[in-house]
């Protein structure tokens, strides 16, 4: 099915490239192993170190294995690139764009991906394939996912020790890795859908990991549901693209309209019908918005923090949520040609607009969060915004590079947060309440945090700088000044809220649990929320936040129940053994497992946690130097980015070569300055607000009306949910349900819940009035009618002979009369 590429002929390949599919298969096997035998395995003590049981080892092992495979693949791909004999290095310190242009002319240098494709099934004349498609992009993401998953799983060994669904957790985590890798490997859209949905499932299972608490399961439901809404776009989009591209693809030797290369080729061939490609791209982009938490479907991501921290760090910051971005990058031509809208002569790309909006919106929200994980969550959303915007403005390579770097520092940040709650704040994520001054107590965590924060803020020489700044720079270069400014503002805000978070967490006076106090009622922490928490089934984001933030406590709470009833529980959740259960019980001080005892106050986390932190921190700093335009290092561009915006060997009139900005410190200067400014301002404000006694601005948002309003505005997330609720849900629902009064009851509910409620109620209404009355009624009615007719005719059967006779004869007479008249 490959094109006969002259270039392809002398490109090197290798075992790993040929067998890349193993990368995804190994975790799959791991998953089934855990499922099958996980619960039966107990801890094995080998001398001093214990190999934890519960099947987690299968998970870690399989991840490690696929990491090795991924590494091998990456290595051989690099070989392949080099064997193509073209590198940026040779061209000295000029911008990648120039070289990009240069090589765009020589098509021979296009490095054909290694595609292995097997027929899955044939149906209705179309062939559904399954296979692996290795090029720079998939190579780097594979490596990334495998790597991060491995680290997070190791981290979880400690973090989730003694959890009652330890085994389930690792099973889901491994399955997720399998799903994500499947999607990344995919050589066709169907396989992408497959991986995509498996990820969704795992996200559901992991967010709802502690499903005893209704709030968690609701958060899980919301996440799955919101993403599912996006998936409508995926199904529709794939369908549209398939039928539009199929003939072209098959004609040019690509498998079918599902084939990624085929789609790219079709999209750039210029032969594609514009409506088809537009609608296809729109539909698919909806899916990406849903998955990557872009505005306006971002609301599920913060709630997803209800899951255990490792989940947040793996799925909801570094890997799964970039799936959307990945899809856009994967079939970039479709979006690039499909979504470029022509506003007033200047080409705008819808992607960029959405991305831009997301950056600002999310960043602003991050300011008002008191829950550290939520700060990070919103920052994730806004960083995803950067990636989208990058793709929107045509900065393909920087965007992908930002995926790469972002994964490291954001994952690291989350793990730090986890580490803090684990050992520092007694399972609380409340910065205002349970943190502060931890920098001395948890030096390693603090160090890692600082590095990652710097990276995130884009402080020069940290990885974030090289990726994010490239995006901003490219926006400027490509003439999208609006987005350039947005990018800069975003950078400023990022620094600001991160400074705030850092201050609240590590500086100032220790508060609450951080100070070693032992307080259990975290519920009290959020007065504004509790109002809603009481509200019946509010899945209002911040209502969930109230629960979400305290979730980790629940990790232990029901375990208490189990500690008392070990026998019974053991056969329900075979994986819990008494010691774990008891050690988790910190309500009564019967038993204490050493490092778990909160009464010892905050302390540094054990190695299983800190080691991954350090590794990630190192990368958070160093990963940037793969593509440090500032030092004219272009490794990443060479290995990953398609040549001159070519995603396939040219067929017909290719369009849309990507401009790439040449790096100049001058251009970088503004953002650097803004970063510093952001830091300064924010630090000052923080100290003066949260600082100790006589802080001039303490409680300012209470005192000054405009600020108070602003605060409230942000706090309620721009009243977005209410707005959705009032306008969208009500507007849509009214004609259907024709029962406005329902919505008075729903006004305070969030959109998903609101939509759910609406659907439920209108369902009820339809069921009651249409189904039972009209449709069903007609049937029963007809029955009744028949009986009624029977009764009506009853008098005819009076029992009186004469009447019978009369009837008989009159009928005869009438019949005779009529027929005579008719027939003669």
């Amino acid at each position, binding site marked *: 099915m490959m094109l006969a590429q002259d270039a392809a002929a002398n490109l090197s390949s290798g075992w790993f490239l040929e067998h890349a599919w193993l990368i995804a298969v190994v975790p799959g096997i791991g998953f089934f192993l855990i499922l099958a035998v996980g619960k039966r395995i107990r801890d094995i003590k080998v001398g001093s170190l214990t190999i934890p049981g519960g099947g987690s080892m299968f998970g870690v092992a399989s991840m490690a294995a696929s990491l090795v495979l991924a590494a091998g693949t990456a290595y051989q791909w690099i070989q392949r690139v080099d064997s193509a004999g073209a590198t940026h290095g040779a061209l000295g310190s000029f911008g990648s764009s120039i070289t990009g242009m240069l090589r765009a002319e020589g098509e021979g240098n296009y490095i054909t991906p290694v595609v292995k494709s097997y027929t899955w099934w044939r149906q209705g004349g179309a062939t559904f394939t399954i296979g692996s498609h290795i090029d720079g992009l998939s190579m780097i993401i594979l490596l990334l996912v495998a790597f991060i998953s491995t680290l997070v799983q190791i981290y979880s060994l400690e973090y989730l020790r003694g959890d009652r669904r330890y085994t389930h957790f690792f099973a889901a985590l491994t399955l997720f890795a399998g799903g994500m890798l499947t999607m990344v490997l995919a050589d066709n859209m169907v396989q992408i859908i497959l991986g995509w949905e498996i990820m969704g499932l795992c996200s559901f299972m992991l967010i709802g990991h502690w499903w005893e608490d209704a709030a968690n399961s609701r958060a899980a439901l919301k996440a799955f549901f919101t993403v599912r809404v996006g998936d409508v776009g995926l199904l529709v989009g794939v369908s549209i693209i398939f039928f539009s591209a199929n003939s072209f693809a098959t004609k040019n030797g690509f498998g079918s309209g599902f084939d990624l290369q085929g789609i790219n080729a079709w999209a750039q061939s210029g032969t594609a019908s514009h409506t088809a490609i537009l609608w296809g791209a729109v539909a698919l982009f909806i899916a990406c918005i849903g998955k990557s938490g872009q505005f306006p479907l971002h609301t599920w991501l913060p709630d997803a923090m209800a899951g255990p921290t490792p989940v947040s760090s793996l799925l909801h910051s570094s890997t799964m949520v970039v799936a959307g971005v990945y899809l856009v990058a994967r079939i970039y031509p479709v979006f690039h040609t499909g979504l470029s809208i022509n506003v007033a002569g200047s080409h705008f790309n819808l992607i960029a607009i959405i991305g831009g909006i997301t950056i600002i919106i999310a960043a602003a929200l991050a300011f008002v969060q008191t829950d550290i994980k939520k700060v990070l969550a919103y920052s994730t959303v806004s960083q995803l915004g950067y990636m989208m915007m990058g793709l929107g403005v045509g900065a393909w390579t920087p965007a992908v590079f930002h995926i790469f770097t972002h994964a490291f520092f954001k994952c690291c940040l989350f793990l730090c947060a986890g580490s803090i709650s684990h050992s520092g704040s007694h399972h609380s994520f409340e910065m205002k309440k349970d943190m502060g001054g931890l920098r001395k107590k948890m030096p390693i965590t603090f160090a890692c945090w600082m590095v990652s924060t710097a990276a995130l803020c884009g402080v020069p020489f940290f990885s974030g700088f090289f990726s994010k700044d490239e995006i901003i720079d490219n926006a400027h270069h490509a003439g999208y000044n609006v987005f350039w400014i947005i990018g800069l503002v975003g950078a400023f805000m990022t620094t600001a809220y991160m400074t705030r978070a850092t201050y609240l967490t590590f500086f100032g006076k220790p508060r609450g649990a951080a100070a070693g106090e032992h307080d259990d009622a975290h519920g009290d922490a959020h007065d504004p929320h509790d109002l809603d928490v009481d509200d019946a089934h509010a899945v209002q984001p911040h209502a969930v936040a109230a629960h979400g933030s305290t979730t980790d406590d629940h990790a232990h709470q029901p375990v208490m129940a189990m500690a008392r009833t070990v026998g019974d529980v053991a056969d329900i959740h075979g994986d819990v053994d008494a010691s774990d259960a008891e050690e988790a019980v910190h309500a009564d001080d019967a038993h204490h497992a050493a490092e778990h005892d909160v009464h010892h106050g905050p302390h540094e986390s054990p190695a299983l946690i800190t080691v991954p932190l350090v590794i990630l921190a190192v990368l958070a700093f160093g990963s940037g130097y793969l593509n440090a335009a500032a030092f004219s290092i272009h490794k990443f561009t060479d290995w990953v980015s398609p040549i001159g915006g070519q995603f396939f060997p040219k067929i017909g009139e290719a369009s849309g070569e990507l401009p790439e900005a040449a790096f100049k410190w001058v251009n970088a200067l503004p953002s650097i300055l803004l970063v510093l400014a952001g830091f300064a301002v924010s630090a000052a404000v923080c100290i003066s607000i949260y600082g100790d006694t006589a802080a001039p601005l303490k409680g300012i948002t209470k005192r000054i009306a405009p600020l108070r309003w602003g605060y409230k505005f942000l706090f309620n997330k721009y009243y977005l949910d209410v707005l959705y609720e009032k306008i969208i849900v009500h507007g849509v629902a009214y004609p259907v349900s024709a029962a406005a009064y329902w919505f008075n009851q729903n006004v305070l509910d969030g959109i998903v819940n609101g939509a759910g409620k609406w659907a439920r109620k209108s369902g009820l209404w339809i069921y009651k009035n249409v189904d039972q009355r009209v449709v069903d009624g007609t049937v029963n009615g007809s029955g009744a009618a028949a009986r009624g007719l029977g009764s009506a005719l*009853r008098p005819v*059967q*009076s*029992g*009186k*002979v*004469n009447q019978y*006779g*009369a009837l008989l*004869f009159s009928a005869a007479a009438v019949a005779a009369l009529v027929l005579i008249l008719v027939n003669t």
Partner: protein
Amino acid sequence: MLISEFLLLGAVLFCIGVYGVIVRKNAVLVLMSIELILNSVNINLLAFSLKYNDISGQTFALYIIAVAAAEVGVGLALVLLIYRNKRNISLDELSEMKG
């Protein structure tokens, strides 16, 4: 010869008979009304038989007379039966079963 008078007579008898069947409440009277109808039929048959100079009409009439006799026999027996059980023969009383 004119046939229409006969037919007219037949028709009149028929109508009278039908009228009797419909309005008479007394079983015996109803029986007699029916006899009237039968006789109207006989008149028709005879008339036509003459018209066609065909004897089968007359045979038919004979059959009817015979059968009518049998019928009346049965009919009176039934009326008697009812009279025995109810002490009257008004047909309106005969509405045990209805609906």
